[in-house]
């Protein structure tokens, strides 16, 4: 293996960690923040798998890449399968300590990628799968995904999405993986802690990061973090973790949730929503939260209800 021993990567830009500064994501891109935080926590001993989508901007173009860790661009639906194969290959060579990270958008995860995700989790393949959720197929020009919010405008739901989004956390929980968590680019410290936990959980893990998209949702880039926080504060995007698929814990309590309308009114994709539709959205958010509350409050015999 003499020819492949010497590292081939030419460093032509400075970077504080593993991601170049000049990546062609939109100004104020939520996913860009997520990518930096996640890779910084995981560190150098990481291989990343990125499907086509906005994150592929980090994969790069031609001979240039924006990542300083090894990476692979798969197809839209097989991120988890490729990651599982990579992990298996490392494990049989005694290099199972290498973090294998899947970093895929909501379309690539909850729609077309759900099968391979489910397979990897059922098998217990020790990959960390991060879904950055900008609520649509943004890289192809703002089409609706299974994770697009109820009533949202997209190019394929021009009259507003008529059904709520899939609860992917519940789907993941059904696989009883050691660690799953929702996260938000508006709460970086919370996200960092979750990546640390995922990294050391000893099995498959999943983090679903809310990443507001100024281009796709219709707001000024400066509002990315504000909106991410509002989503949490209105309970549109509760922050919680699930251990072993059964033990739920809120990681950022919202004592008095704000009205969903405050969140919707800041985004052009909810422009001109009549009051009745806003009330619908509020109801839907409340109902989803009630389901989560049941999980949070559930006491399992012998297992205890909440872990620290």
């Amino acid at each position: 293996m003499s020819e492949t021993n010497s590292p081939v990567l030419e460093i032509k830009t400075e970077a504080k960690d593993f991601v170049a500064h000049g990546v062609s994501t939109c100004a104020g891109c939520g996913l860009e923040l997520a990518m930096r935080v996640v890779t910084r926590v995981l560190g150098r001993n990481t291989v990343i798998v990125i499907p086509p989508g906005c994150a592929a901007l980090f994969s790069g173009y031609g001979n240039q890449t924006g990542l300083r860790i090894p990476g692979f661009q798969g197809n839209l639906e097989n991120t988890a399968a490729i990651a599982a194969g990579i992990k298996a290959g490392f494990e049989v060579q005694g290099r199972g300590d290498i973090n294998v990270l899947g970093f895929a958008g909501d379309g690539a995860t909850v729609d077309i990628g759900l099968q391979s995700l489910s397979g990897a989790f059922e098998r217990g393949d020790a990959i960390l799968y991060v879904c950055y959720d900008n609520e649509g197929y943004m890289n192809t020009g703002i089409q609706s995904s299974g994770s697009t919010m109820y009533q949202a405008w997209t190019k394929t739901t021009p009259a507003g999405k008529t059904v709520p989004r899939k609860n992917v956390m519940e789907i993941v929980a059904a696989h009883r993986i050691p660690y799953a968590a929702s996260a938000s680019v508006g709460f970086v410290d919370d996200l960092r802690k979750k990546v640390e936990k995922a990294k050391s959980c000893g099995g498959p893990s999943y983090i679903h990061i809310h990443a507001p998209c100024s281009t796709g949702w219709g707001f000024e880039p400066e509002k990315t973090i504000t909106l991410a926080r509002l989503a949490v504060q209105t309970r549109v995007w509760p922050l919680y973790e699930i251990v072993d698929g059964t033990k739920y814990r809120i990681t950022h309590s919202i004592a008095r949730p704000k009205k969903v309308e405050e969140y919707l009114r800041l985004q052009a994709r909810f422009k001109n929503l009549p009051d009745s539709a806003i009330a619908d959205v509020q109801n839907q958010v409340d109902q989803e939260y009630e389901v989560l509350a049941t999980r949070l409050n559930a006491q399992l015999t012998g297992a205890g209800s909440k872990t620290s």
Partner: protein
Amino acid sequence: MKRTMMDGNQAAAEAMRFARIRVVSAYPITPQSSIAETLADFVADGSLQAKYLRIESEHSALSSVIGAQLTGVRAGTATASVGLALMHEVMGVASGLRLPIVMPVVNRSLVSPWNLWCDHQDAMAERDSGWTQLYAENCQEVLDLILIAYRWSEYPKVLLPCMMNLDGFFLSHLTEVVMLPDQKTVDAFLPPYVPHNLLLDPDNPMFINNLTGPSEFTEMRFQQSLAFGEALETLPQVLEEFQQVFGRQYSLLDAYRCDDAEAVVVTMGSMSGTARYAVDQLRSEGKKVGALKVVCFRPFPVALLRQLLGGIPHVGVIDRSAGLGAESGPLCGEVRAALELESPEVSGFIAGLGGRDVRLETFRKAFDFLLNSPSTSNTTWLDVEANAMSIREVGV
């Protein structure tokens, strides 16, 4: 060499075990399933040191094999029919990334109609995928050609994935005598895998398979086409090496009694044995006929084909797939193109689709056509029933 009895699927699994694959990721599908099962047994009993991914689809099977191979180990999968079709999206990834993955394919028809039995349509649908393709005639060849495929594919100037085809049921489920080598002999022929090209390794980071623009895409496809040229040149040498180590001689094209033949039938896969039997029978009746078996379909050995068949007055090619919409089946099309300048008359035949046995009678019909009928560019379906249009007649 140990004399054993085993079927084609068993032989395929043995070959992959001999090749010391480290990751297995295979999804069950008739008639391949016993390959996945046998490999599971090997992993469970420790005779194969590998991680077994109980993968949830063929698309994921090849995807995970690509991921594993990129870390620097041999990773294995096998499939058939619609399973191969499901892999289609990822086939080009293996080839474009120059990964020397070897995959047994148990040839079975595509749908619809639903059919479980032997047909080459699955592999033919992948003929432009950038994979090399070999076809086995018997269970010994299944074992041998897979070992050959690993050695061949891993040549630094080749680096192409290889599909090793074995006829569904006719080979996969046929128990024959197979001479099994020992591991030491195989190791002498097939050295450990060394990743020569792209690699995933935190100690040597690179980003693999990112977006490639019009300014470079053509060059990368050209690299692959050059590799097919290298593959064509390299295979005879690998077959020579194999002969020296194992004592069995193979060639890209196997000509049988073609030298003075007036008519030759070209075949691939298990029907080739029946072809030679038919030739012998017809020869004993005074007919000057021969048979040519294609072992290496991709790259297609044009020069060698011209050498062997140029000057034969009547050539017939039996395609085991329909090649709908084209003037002839795919193999016939390739043979015609290769012989265009040499022999004006190449007739196309279709036979053996969907598991229909290609029998002695079928070959006799083909030779009869070649020797006695006026030349035609139409394709003759040798074994189709006369009432084809009314087999689903419904009553009043």
